[in-house]
Structures are given as structure tokens and as C-alpha cells.
């Protein structure tokens, strides 16, 4: 460090000082552009512009390295050095750190934050500059170890070039990423999707909802204050899963579940298992208080068709046994898929199990939660990301590279045969 400080800045060979000045210059320029022109527009990079930019960027890096190869001390070669790597890493870290503390949503931030581009960081000029500097350093480092090629540099290549591909592919590909939603109604064939601004788009495939399915975990039994609906005691909720035969103690009451129906309907003063629109879970419970008094009755979460039922525990409506609303365990939609080529097939689209068709991936996205499992509609998200294979290539390279990274540790040298 001391030696470097003596060397006047901007004389070769460059070191950290030049790197920090580049970072400051990029931040200042980026900020000025951000304030005067506003943020970036991703769509400007759409196919094939992104292809041209990506390939010329990579070609320039490769050519820059090769041309200056014999001038080891030139600033171009410096870009392949650790000072360039570290200053660019710190610049990106700084910007991402700001992003880590600022809610990324323009509407929820003061105007000055929006003007500086901080609430939409990934579409801001400083971020673009930081990432570009980072990618140049990364690309140049790759070239440095690639030519001449040596077998022992394979791990290095996997990590550095893999990361280069991920970031470049991800940034350029985001311009071609299409995310639309398709709102389906039972028995209706839908060919159109909607983007986030509500514009309709014609799709190369159509979906017809056969049924939306929702499975639920069993609900739990709790004691609530019937006036506020709050669980008692609030600090450490006492509850247990409802299933016929389950028994537990809540707030000093010995509570036993005698009967339980996941889907039931109310018949006068009791519940019977049914399986029609609006059915809800219900349980017959018995609670025994400390003094031996016994209370028995039905509890139910109710649904949009039926009121809920509580079991009053002490006749003054202070404490009531209640059933929690069951949590979902699975969401899926059975749909008929039509393509323009005339293919028709039935598929199930489930959370974590998207379906691929015609270059699109179809995801279970949403449903009408007012109706819960009886929702007559289902919303499917259709996503097309043509750059995905590029990014995945990089991801698999870095996955392999990280295994290499784990092998780099060295055993310490021993002193007189003794471990330190």
C-alpha cells in the first residue's frame, strides 16, 4: 500500500487508487444521468438489440485483452487485476447495500429517493455502470487465465466465466422476459393474457379450467375472546390439531375432539358430512373444566355460505372454543391445454410444478380467496424467458466451480512436527 501511495495517480502500473477514482467517477456520472434523464427503460434492450450488445461487449473484452497482451502494464491489462476486481466488487456491494435498506417500490418512497433512482435500483444508471465495470473486470480476469489455456485453470474458468454468463445473460435477458396472467373460469376457453398494466395479449395457446383444487391441513382448536376474535392467551398461543380422538389442555380445559368432518354442512343443531359448494370443516368437541363441569358442542370455521360456530365455555361469553381457518397444503388447477397446431390435452398446474407448453411456462398463481377451495376461478401465470438456457449454463458452471472452490484449502505447515 505504502509503495503505491508514492506513485502518482494515473501513471502505470495502476493500482487501487485508480480503481477507487474510477468508482467515484462512475457513481458521479451515473447519478448525473439518473437525475437529468431519469431511470433506464429495460424494453430498449429487447431482442435482437440485447444479442448485439452482449456479443459486441464480449468481443471487445476479448479483443482488448488480446491486443494489449504484450503491454502488461497498460490500463487495459489492469482491468484483469485484483484491484479492478475489488473496486468493482465494492461498487456493486455499495449499490446493492443501498437497495438492501430501501424498499424497492417507487410509490412508497419520498420523491428525492425516487429521483436518485434508489427505490428502483436495478433500473438506475449508477447500477448499470457498476454492473458494467464489474463485468469488464470479470471478463478480463477470465481472459487472463484462459489464454494460454492451462488445465489447472478449469476451476477458475468455471467460476469466473460462469458468473459472467449468469450476470450478462440475466441483465440482457430481462428485456425479453414476459410475465402475463391468464384468468380462467370453469368451462371457458381463454386465449388471451394480461400484462401488469392490464393490456391484453394474444397467446399461442389456450387454457380451459376444469377445476381449481385446494387441499388443506386440518384446522386447530383454540380458545378465543368471542367479542374481539383474538386468541387467548395471545403471548403463547395454546392450540392443537383437530382430528377425531385428539385431546389436549387449553387454558386449563381438558378438550377432546369427538368427531371431525373436513367438509360438512349444518343440519339444524349439528353438522353432517357433505361435499357441496360452500361446505366447511366442523368438529364436535367436549371440554371439561377444572371443577368437572362438562360442555359439549359443535365448532366450525364456517364459509362464505355458512356462519361460523363457537362453543361458549363459561356461559358468560368470555371464553369460547373456536376452530382456526385451515391452512392450504396444495393448490392446483386441472386445465385443458389447446395449441394453435390443434393439440388438446389435460394437464395439472400446481404450485412448484409448472407446466411447459409452446415455449411458455405456466404457473399456478392465484384464485378467488373469497371462495377458498370452492373458487370458480383460477389465475395462471404464463412466463417466457428465452434467455433462460444461457443463464442456466452459467449456473451449472458456477455450481461445478463451487465444488472446486471447496478443495482449495491448504494444510498449515508444521513447526518441528507440531501443529500450531
Amino acid at each position, binding site marked *: 500500500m505504502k509503495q503505491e501511495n508514492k506513485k502518482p495517480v494515473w501513471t502505470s502500473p495502476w493500482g487501487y487508487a485508480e480503481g477507487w477514482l474510477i468508482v467515484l467517477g462512475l457513481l458521479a456520472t451515473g447519478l448525473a444521468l439518473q437525475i437529468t434523464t431519469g431511470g433506464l427503460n429495460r424494453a430498449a434492450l429487447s431482442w435482437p438489440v440485447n444479442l448485439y450488445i452482449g456479443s459486441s461487449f464480449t468481443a471487445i473484452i476479448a479483443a482488448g485483452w488480446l491486443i494489449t497482451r504484450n503491454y502488461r502494464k497498460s490500463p487495459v491489462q489492469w482491468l484483469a487485476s485484483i484491484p479492478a476486481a475489488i473496486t468493482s466488487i465494492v461498487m456493486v*456491494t455499495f449499490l446493492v447495500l443501498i437497495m*438492501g*435498506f430501501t424498499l*424497492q417500490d417507487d410509490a412508497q418512497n419520498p420523491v428525492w429517493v425516487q429521483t436518485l433512482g434508489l427505490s428502483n435500483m436495478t433500473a438506475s444508471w449508477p447500477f448499470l455502470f457498476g454492473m458494467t465495470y464489474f463485468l469488464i473486470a470479470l471478463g478480463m480476469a477470465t481472459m487472463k487465465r484462459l489464454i494460454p489455456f492451462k488445465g489447472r485453470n478449469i476451476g477458475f474458468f468455471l467460476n469466473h466465466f460462469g458468473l459472467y454468463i449468469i450476470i450478462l445473460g440475466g441483465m440482457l435477458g430481462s428485456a425479453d422476459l414476459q410475465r402475463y396472467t391468464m384468468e380462467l373460469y370453469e368451462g371457458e376457453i381463454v386465449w388471451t393474457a394480461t400484462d401488469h398494466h392490464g393490456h391484453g395479449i394474444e397467446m399461442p395457446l389456450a387454457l380451459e379450467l376444469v377445476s381449481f383444487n385446494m387441499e388443506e391441513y386440518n384446522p386447530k382448536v383454540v380458545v378465543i375472546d368471542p367479542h374481539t376474535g383474538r386468541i387467548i392467551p395471545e403471548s403463547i398461543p395454546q392450540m392443537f390439531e383437530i382430528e377425531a380422538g385428539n385431546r*389436549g389442555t387449553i387454558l386449563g380445559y381438558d378438550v377432546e375432539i369427538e368427531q371431525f368432518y373436513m367438509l360438512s354442512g349444518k343440519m339444524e343443531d349439528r353438522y353432517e358430512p357433505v361435499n357441496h359448494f360452500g361446505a366447511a370443516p366442523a368438529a364436535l368437541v367436549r371440554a371439561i373444566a377444572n371443577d368437572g363441569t362438562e360442555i359439549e358442542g359443535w365448532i366450525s370455521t364456517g364459509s362464505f355460505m355458512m356462519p361460523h360456530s363457537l362453543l361458549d365455555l363459561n356461559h358468560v361469553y368470555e371464553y369460547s372454543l373456536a376452530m382456526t381457518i385451515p391452512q392450504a397444503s396444495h393448490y392446483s388447477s386441472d386445465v385443458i391445454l389447446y395449441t394453435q397446431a390443434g393439440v388438446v390435452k389435460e394437464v395439472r398446474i400446481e*404450485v412448484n410444478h409448472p407446466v411447459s407448453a409452446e415455449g411458455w411456462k405456466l*404457473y399456478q398463481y392465484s384464485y378467488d380467496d373469497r371462495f377458498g377451495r370452492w373458487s370458480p376461478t383460477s389465475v395462471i401465470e404464463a412466463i417466457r424467458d428465452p434467455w433462460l438456457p444461457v443463464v442456466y449454463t452459467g449456473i451449472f458452471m*458456477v455450481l461445478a466451480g463451487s465444488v472446486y472452490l471447496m478443495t482449495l484449502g491448504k494444510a498449515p505447515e508444521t513447526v518441528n512436527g507440531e501443529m500450531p
Partner: protein
Amino acid sequence: MPFDPTLFTIASIACWVAGMALFIFQKKHLLVKVLSHGLFLAGVIILSVLAALLWQELGRAPMRTLGETRLWYALFLPLIGYATYTRWKYDWIIYYSGVMAIVFLGVNLAYPDNYDRALMPALQSVWFVPHVIVYIFAYAILAVSALAALKGLWINYYRKGRDWSPQLADNLVYIGLGFLTLGLLFGALWGKEAWGHYWTWDPKETWAFLTWIGYLAYIHFRHHKPRQVVPAMWVLAFAFIILLICWFGVNYLPSAANSVHTYSN
């Protein structure tokens, strides 16, 4: 009623306390040595049995709540500590990893989890277990590296002489960063299947990226200036603070209002 992990937890703690106590005198007698190592490992085995039983009882991987992740920490830390000890013979790592594991279990005893079977649909994926295991493993190793950094700083400021902790730190960071990278990328592959995109700069992802790039800065600086130990160890300590924010803090940050990754209890 879900079964009670208290007995297992106390048994593990007892094994580690006894194992560490005997470890102090392990050089005196072979029997003491065998007993101390045996007890230390028995604590790990008891906790593995607990994890397996919980897994079976809940019908899902016990990795959802903070309490459940603490369990895995308490399992991995002594394991990593013991492995590091056998490989490089640093005694202090046994005490450190044992005490940390006891602290994690102690927190679990003080705040028993409300064990709950429910696993939201987005978490039901083949990626869930590898993603979480690899991450916890990385965090546990990097926690040890942070301690090596503190030891390195202490030696550099207060005592002169040969110091091996930077090299231990390097070795641990190579392994820890390797696992961190696996976790990050498994997360990306999972995100594509579950939420439709591999990277959305969600707050948890943003902080995971910061953690990752912090360790990246460390290994590059070490590669370039292996003799400048003090700044390198500061970078390592700072990287661990980012890791802690990523692990616990994200829920409390204003930027996390819309996160899909906050832990539920």
C-alpha cells in the same frame, strides 16, 4: 400432541458439557481422551436422532421455523468443529463449537417452538431440503471463520508472532463460500419453479447476494495481499455481520415489507 424434544435437547447438552470438561484433561490419559471424544460425538448423535424423529412426526422437513433451523445449527456446529479439530488440531474449536451449539439449544429450551405440520405449498419442493441444509452448513462454517478472524485480529494487535488463524480462516472460507454458492444457486433454481423467476431482488435475495459478495471480496483480497492480515480479517468480520443481518435481520428492515421469504412462526 406433538412429541416433546426437551429430553433429547438436555441429553445433548449434558454430553457436550461433559465431553468438553474431559477434553481439558484429554492429554493426561487415553481413557479420558476416548471418553471426552465419545461424549462429544454422542451429543451430536442424540441430536440427529431428535431431528429424524421430528421429521417423521411432522411429516415434513423440520426446517421451517427459526427454532427448527437452530436445531440444525446445533447439530452442524459441533460436527464441523470436530472435523476441523481432527484435520488441523485446533483445540479451541471444540470449545467454541460446543458452547455455540449449547447456546442454540438453550434458546430452543427457553422458547419452545409451536411445532406445526403445515408447510405452505411454495415450500413443498425437492429443493427445500438441499437449499436449507447447504445454507445452514455454510453459515455454521462461516461463523467459525469469523471467530478465526477475531482471533487473528487479537493476535495481531496484542501479541506478535506466528499466527495461523488467517490460514484457518482461508480454508474455512473456501468451504463456506462453496456451500454458500451452492445454496444461492439452488435457491435460484427453486425460485424458477416456485415463483417463476430465478432472481427477483427480493430483500432476502438482496442480502444473500451481499453476504456472498462480501466473502468474494475477502478471498480476492487475500489472494492479492496475503501479508496484509489486519484489513483482511476486518473484511471477514464485516462479512459475517452482513450474514447475520441476512439471517435474522431481514424481517425487521423497511425494505422487507414485501418479502416472500420472512420466517413465519
